């Protein structure tokens, strides 16, 4: 325990582990064993992992140590990584935290997973998340909630809550998450770590279990911006297996981290921050902006007049896409199938059902989906089915897509012209982490937690959350910066400069320090 304690208090990073392994100061196997030991001691309290792949990880680490010359120069050599359980890992159970996929073992790897492993990273496990990435608190996992390392009775945020908790608890220095409406940034903020949602298309979605395809994006969660940049270098880039992946060239994102932000213009949408933001959160954000200003950045007011519609637009668009994407779970090709049994159809279900519903096949579909999906997934499928149905499509779905255009134009305007800004700043979450159970009975209240994060998904713009303070009760607060399309370099430069001047990312949560 002593050596483990020393390692954690020193605060390992992706870069320090990589450099140690590369210099043969530590073997990949040692690093891997230490990560697995931390899972064993901490995860019973956190429940950050759905699956731990100890043997597989140790075998890979041993291979790196054995064939060292081949691996030495890989950018993530020996770095232990946790992967959200909605990305396919060949031969390793991938559940999306759903009963529907509880025993699903994919026959292929997600591109992001393949690239991590090719870069020398060692996957130690698959992290807990909200079922099919639907939620804001990680309470929608079919396997039970994740606990926030800073306060075990609080939510870690969602949906990549296990990934954020694993990094915050120093279990691994890096995790992959996915972000459809804030699912990387919000848990990163609530757990006091860095979370980056890259530009839509920057990272291939091949092998990512789809929720809302026009919004989903994979990205890194780490403790430093430098580490997030190291990871983005590896996972970014075009992929012939994802037609929406972007052909844009991938720069070395770490080269952009110069600390020099003189002349950078940061937009502040003050009108947006006036309502519903916890006073300690807004104070931390304003102090963070002063810090960036003292490094030479200029703060300017920006208007985002349609931002107030982002939540309703998001929940109409995302549920519509989800109802379509999740139609594939029908008990035929993979995943759960309900055994034939007693049916308890709701009153009225029978007479309004299409003809296949009366067949044995139709019954199997409906019962498989009834028993395989949890309540939030059913709620969103129902909402999405309704807004896409005849007679309501124009009123809700089409209208939401039009307002999406207006939100996009607000951002384009802020990022262009003589008054153009380089980034837009706001809180990641309007409040610090709330208590487990506090909002479960009120889905609408839960959706409002995403008020500052969904716009980056609707617009496709890159956004990062970086630790910027603690509330009086010791819970972390995050600053969100949104950047220009495909300008992760500029965005990360600002976030890194901020980290250089602050120490919010350094303290370890009580569960680590003991």
């Amino acid at each position, binding site marked *: 325990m002593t050596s483990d304690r020393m390692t954690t208090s020193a605060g390992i990073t992706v870069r320090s582990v990589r450099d140690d392994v590369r210099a043969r100061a530590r073997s990949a196997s040692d690093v891997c064993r230490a990560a697995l030991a931390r899972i064993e001691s901490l995860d019973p309290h956190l429940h950050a992992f759905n699956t731990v792949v100890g043997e597989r990880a140790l075998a890979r680490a041993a291979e790196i140590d054995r064939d060292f010359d081949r691996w030495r120069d890989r950018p993530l050599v020996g770095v232990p990584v946790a992967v959200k359980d909605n990305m396919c890992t060949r031969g390793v159970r991938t559940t999306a935290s759903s009963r529907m996929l509880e025993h*699903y*073992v994919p*026959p*292929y790897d997600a591109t992001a997973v393949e690239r991590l492993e090719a870069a020398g990273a060692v996957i130690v496990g698959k992290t807990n998340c909200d079922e099919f990435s639907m939620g804001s608190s990680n309470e929608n996992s079919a396997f039970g909630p994740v606990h926030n390392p800073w306060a075990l009775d609080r939510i870690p945020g969602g949906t990549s809550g296990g990934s954020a908790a694993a990094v915050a608890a120093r279990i691994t220095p890096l995790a992959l998450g996915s972000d459809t409406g804030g699912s990387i940034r919000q848990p990163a903020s609530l757990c006091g770590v860095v979370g980056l949602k890259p530009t*839509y298309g920057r990272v291939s979605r091949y092998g990512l279990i789809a929720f809302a395809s*026009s919004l989903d994006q994979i990205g890194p969660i780490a403790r430093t911006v430098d580490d997030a940049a190291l990871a983005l270098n590896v996972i970014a880039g*075009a992929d012939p297996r994802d037609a*929406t*992946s*972007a*052909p*844009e060239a991938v720069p070395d994102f770490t080269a952009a981290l110069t600390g020099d932000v003189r002349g950078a213009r940061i937009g502040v949408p003050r009108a947006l921050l006036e309502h519903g933001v916890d006073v300690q959160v807004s104070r931390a954000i304003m102090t963070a902006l002063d810090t960036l200003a003292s490094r030479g950045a200029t703060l300017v007011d920006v208007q985002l007049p349609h931002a107030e*519609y982002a939540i*309703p*637009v998001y*929940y*109409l668009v995302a549920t519509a896409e989800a109802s379509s994407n999740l*139609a594939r779970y*029908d008990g*035929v*090709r*993979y*995943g759960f*199938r309900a055994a034939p049994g007693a049916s*308890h*159809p*709701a*009153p*009225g*279900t029978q007479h*309004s059902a*299409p003809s*296949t519903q009366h*067949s*044995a*096949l*139709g*019954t199997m*579909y*409906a019962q498989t*989906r*009834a028993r395989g999906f949890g*309540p939030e997934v*059913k*709620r969103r499928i*129902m*909402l999405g*089915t*309704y807004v896409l*149905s005849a007679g309501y499509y124009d*009123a*809700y779905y*089409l*209208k939401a897509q*039009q*307002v*999406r*255009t207006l939100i996009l134009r607000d951002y384009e305007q802020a990022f262009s012209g003589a008054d153009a800004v380089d980034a837009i700043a706001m809180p990641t979450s309007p409040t610090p982490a709330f208590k487990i159970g506090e909002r479960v009975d009120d889905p*609408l209240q839960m*959706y409002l937690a995403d008020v500052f994060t969904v716009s980056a998904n609707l617009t496709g713009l890159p956004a990062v959350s970086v630790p910027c303070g603690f509330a009086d009760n010791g819970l972390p607060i995050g600053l969100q910066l949104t950047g220009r399309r495909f300008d992760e370099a500029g965005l990360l430069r600002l976030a890194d400069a901020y980290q250089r001047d602050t120490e919010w990312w350094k303290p370890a949560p009580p569960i680590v320090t003991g």
Partner: protein
Amino acid sequence: MPSEFSRDQIAAIAALARLELDPAEVELFARQLGDILAYAEQVRRVDTTGVPPTASVVTRHATDRADELRPSLDRDVAIESAPDPALDAGFFKVPRVIG
């Protein structure tokens, strides 16, 4: 738009979504879907005259790839994760469709 859905409306949506709901779920969703849509009503107040819809934010597609044979999953591997695979025949098996 009613602020609460009727049971028949919920049943009709569930049928379209191929979801069997129990009576408690019907009651719950009638109320919650009504609440969420009442909140979403605000987007209908926005003037969107002449505004095109955004379905995708992809700005530039990668060039089309050549249409040629490439390696893919072996058929047996693809069907072996099925709940009821017919490995010998290379099929997915499903319950009776007709009757």
